[in-house]
């Protein structure tokens, strides 16, 4: 007779769901941290988009951990807390996820410099998409300085974010080996 435990072990350890849940929770936590950072005078009206750095990293190296629904959730949560146009950030992030999925093999083989450049272009396009939506819906042009500042600060934080996530990933790998 076959040992029944092996079936349960397989069911417990091979499901992506717990990790997906953790990744989504971490993304939501980053949105809350962004909101906290907005209290710093320097980030008033333009907090760095940490959740985008996280989504970008996870989509390239661990895309299974972040299904599109989690990205939608993170986006809507951000829209909700920042009192932005509901769905604006969510749709921008989902479109970015599709673009990354489409080019994933090339991005995975790129060095960090190329990734940084790609992220710069992606973030600029996301901001432009949100800006166009905002202008269409509000029929007004907002001040561009805070948007540019936000792009600049997020780009500066990208290496730090990648370093932290690589470090966290290798730590998890080591724990798994032990």
């Amino acid at each position, binding site marked *: 007779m076959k040992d029944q435990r092996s079936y349960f072990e397989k069911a417990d350890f091979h499901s992506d769901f717990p990790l997906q849940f953790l990744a989504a929770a971490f993304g939501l*936590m980053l949105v*809350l*941290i*962004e*909101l*906290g*950072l*907005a*209290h*710093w*005078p320097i*980030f*008033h*009206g*333009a*907090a760095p988009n940490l959740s985008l750095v996280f989504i970008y990293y996870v989509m390239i190296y661990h895309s299974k951990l972040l299904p*599109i*629904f989690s990205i*939608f959730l993170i*986006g*809507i949560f*951000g829209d*909700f*807390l*920042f*009192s*932005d*146009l*509901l*769905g*604006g950030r*969510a*749709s921008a992030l*989902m*479109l970015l996820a*599709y673009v990354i999925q489409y080019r994933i093999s090339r991005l995975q083989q790129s060095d960090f410099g190329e990734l940084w450049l790609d992220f710069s272009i992606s973030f600029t396009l996301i*901001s432009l998409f*949100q800006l166009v*939506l*905002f202008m269409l*819906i*509000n029929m*007004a042009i*907002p*001040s561009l*300085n*805070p*948007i540019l500042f*936000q792009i600049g600060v997020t780009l500066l934080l990208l290496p730090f974010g990648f370093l932290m996530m690589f470090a966290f990933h290798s730590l998890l790998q080591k724990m798994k080996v032990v």
Partner: protein
Amino acid sequence: MRLSDKAGLRQRRIVHGFLIILSFSLMFLGKADLTALHNLRMAGSEFLAPIVDTVSAPIRGIETMIEGVRTVASLRAENVRVQAENDLLKRWRRRAEILESENRQLRSVTGAATVENRIPITARAVTAPGGSFAHTVLISIGAGKGVVRGNPVVTADGLVGIVIDVGVKHARVLMISDINSRIPVILASSSWPGLTVGQNGPFLELQFLPGEAKPKIGELVLTSGHGGVLPNGLPVGRVDKIEGDKIRVSPAVDFRQLSYVSVLVGGLDGIDNSDLDLGNFYTPLPVTGSTRLLKGLNSSGKRR
């Protein structure tokens, strides 16, 4: 590709398509200002406010620590500056007392406009504007303390914004720097009326000034009280830059340092709140047969 893979792919595509359509629909529904969506948004904010507050606490702590170190470093210079400022303020206080007395006498003669009696209630700013597309803050008091939509929010320096959504314990404030904010103002020295319009940036724009108006750099901009939602005489900012038709106003309040605010509760009697409920801040002038809009002013804004 197996049949089950194909079905899975198709199912995923349907879910993705649905999520994209949902996002776009939410955008338009959000702009349609539906009451149900407003209530949902406010209920969500109310639920999340304690979580946001808890997560923000250590980040605010770091900021306070940095500020503390900076303050200690500049304490000596600060002391000299404060002493000089204190002397200046004493002189200003004497001058203000004289002017107040003179003002009281003049009011009794002319019946000039007075600010309505509103009760200030202090609240803590739970969030700060972090996005580039909306400038709102969540504050720690709501309907439980008598706050209603349209109440002005101020600090000692001047006007911060207007309450736009009210929950039981929290309320959301649309700041004057938001692009959707329009504040009826007058220039303090010349009394010309206009509107300040937010730009989602650090400055406001002064629009709809009459052609004859000649604003000066540094001139104070005050709320005019037209429309009845805001009391008159609240400082909004100072004229900062004039470039052709574009007049830039620097807000009186430093929004980057916003921790506590006062909500001016009351004084909205006689205002058509049904318009406010729809999110439309246009308030029709009261039709009473009299042309007097504010005490001491007629419909064209001239003193009687």
